[in-house]
């Protein structure tokens, strides 16, 4: 067991003594011969102290993490094998993989997957390019740039609940901003019950998601863009490349890692989407805006089918995990190794 106070790279030797009373004196008064036993004794003490420190300092984090993160996820896997209403100690009615078999035939759950996929595709095709465009725009020197940046990013700090309540009002058929605007423009024929119509609700949801989150992606792109050395663009321009060519052959490839992270965040966000849907539509009408998390919540907390709801949780877990591993393996392998561990959308 190696237990030293060395840095990760072992940049400096183990301390010869830590009982030196003053900064540079003290030690010099002792002969090396006299020093030796004291050094060994103090090293041993030092190692014991280190072990104690490691144990004491890790314990609180370990305890919280094991009990409140790892434990519940393991418990979800366990209860997913039972038919259980969530009451009375541990579940007893073991049904094996029945809940998962039911899952594969559940049209709502399969619909959740389809809707999640649509939201991801819309994000990648609409939201992220807009964010990228704005990031490149705001990278140009222009007056008021800091102000624009502040405004574009502001929705990110509002909670999904507050955003959703605001937009329920905006989509409302009578007093809502959107239908009122259409009528002011003489476009009454386009008026809709946006959130109550199965054909529009998913797009309305996507609109609100984009309103709230494009600023986050824009900030990521801005950070990525600013890490590209200016000289590269200048060199390309001097060599006679047009603005579009510079974008296509210099900026875009160098933004690759950032774009891959941003897509990753969109997908993980879509898998976990709950608050916004719960408040905006509750998943309706007739499940047409429902997500996996909403379905899970319905079964778990509204219908007391905790076993089945746990199976949905486990499915969510496996989908995120498999997706994350595959994404890291095949899409991000060119980027910094291990980078996948450093990113996650805040719920």
């Amino acid at each position: 067991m190696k237990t030293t106070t060395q840095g990760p790279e072992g940049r400096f030797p183990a301390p010869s003594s830590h009982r030196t009373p003053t900064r540079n004196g003290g030690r010099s008064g002792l002969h090396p011969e006299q020093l030796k036993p004291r050094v060994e004794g103090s090293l041993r003490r030092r190692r014991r102290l280190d072990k104690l420190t490691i144990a004491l300092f890790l314990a609180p984090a370990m305890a919280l993490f094991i009990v409140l993160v790892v434990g519940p996820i393991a418990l979800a896997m366990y209860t997913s094998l039972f038919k259980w209403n969530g009451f009375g100690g541990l579940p007893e009615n073991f049904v094996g993989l029945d809940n998962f078999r039911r899952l594969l035939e559940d049209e709502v759950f399969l619909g959740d997957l389809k809707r999640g996929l649509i939201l991801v595709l819309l994000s990648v095709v609409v939201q992220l390019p807009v964010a990228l465009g704005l990031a490149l725009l705001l990278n140009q020197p222009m007056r008021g740039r800091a102000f624009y940046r502040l405004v574009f990013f502001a929705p990110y700090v509002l909670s999904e609940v507050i955003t959703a309540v605001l937009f329920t009002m905006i989509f409302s058929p009578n007093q809502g901003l959107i239908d009122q605007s259409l009528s002011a423009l003489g476009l009454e024929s386009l008026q809709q019950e946006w959130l109550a119509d199965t054909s529009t609700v998913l797009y309305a949801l996507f609109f609100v998601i984009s309103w709230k989150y494009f600023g986050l992606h824009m900030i990521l792109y801005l950070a990525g863009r600013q890490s590209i050395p200016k000289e590269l663009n200048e060199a390309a321009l001097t060599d006679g490349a047009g603005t579009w060519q510079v974008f296509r052959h210099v900026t875009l490839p160098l933004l690759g890692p950032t774009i891959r992270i941003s897509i990753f965040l969109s997908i993980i966000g879509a898998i976990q989407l709950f608050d916004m849907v719960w408040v905006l539509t509750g998943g309706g009408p007739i499940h047409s805006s429902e997500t996996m998390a909403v379905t899970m919540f319905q079964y778990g907390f509204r219908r007391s089918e905790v076993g089945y709801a746990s199976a949905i949780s486990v499915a969510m877990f496996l989908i995120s995990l498999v997706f994350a591993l595959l994404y890291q393996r095949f899409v991000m392998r060119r980027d910094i190794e291990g980078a996948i561990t450093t990113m996650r959308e805040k719920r």
Partner: protein
Amino acid sequence: MSTRKDTKVRHFWLHLIAIIVGAGIIVPVAFGVLGGFKDNGQLVTNPFGLPSPWVPENYTAILGSSGFWRPLFNSTVIALATVVLLVVVASMAAYVFARFNFRGREGLYTLFAAGLMFPFAVAILPLFVLLRELSLLNSPLGVILPQVAFGLPMTIIILRSFFRTIPGEVEEAAILDGCTPFGFFWRILMPMARPALATVSVLAIVASWNNFMLPLVVFTDPSWWTLPVGVQQFQGQYADDTARVLAYVVLAMLPALGFYAVAERQLVGGLASGATKG
């Protein structure tokens, strides 16, 4: 001459696009702010204009009721407790991961880091059952402790990478001066890590402030509702009174926007570094 004109034209388009998108952000919020000053009749007959007359009662009624202040207070207490506990626990762990060598270190670290992959929704059901068994429902600890636990991965990763940037010579000097590992951690490392601590604190406060699912299931007792739960319940209660709901939403936005104005740099920097660096 012509290049200057080009620049001007280009700037015109840049500003035009920025203003259009900016309007897309601001108009819905302005609709809320102004709508809160209207009554429901005005919202139908005069959706775009300024309120006439201005009706401040929606705002004053909410500001005069505990239905707003109580959730605001709860959210604040829970966010502060979460961030203090999270930063203390995570920096202790990050210190060990950053500056000690021991068997199993990388494995343990990977376990924490993998926690980033666990969606909160996966754990909510068993967490609810667990908190019920521990009698932590309707207790702020029932929200604070899970929030800390789920905040650990991100916080430990950011702090660990920061702690590693502090040169070994500093630690060596401290130890020669008789510092214990704890003394080094508390008296030297933590003060030096202030910028990183500010970043993770801001991220944790935003996450706690916006958390909805956990408080929703933990607090059945309205006196513990946090702001997101309060907003949602208020909307349910006054579904037909649009103007009043708008006023509540606008008031509920203010603390977050105020915090954003103060902590913008840490928040943006934290998100950018959290997503791009190891």
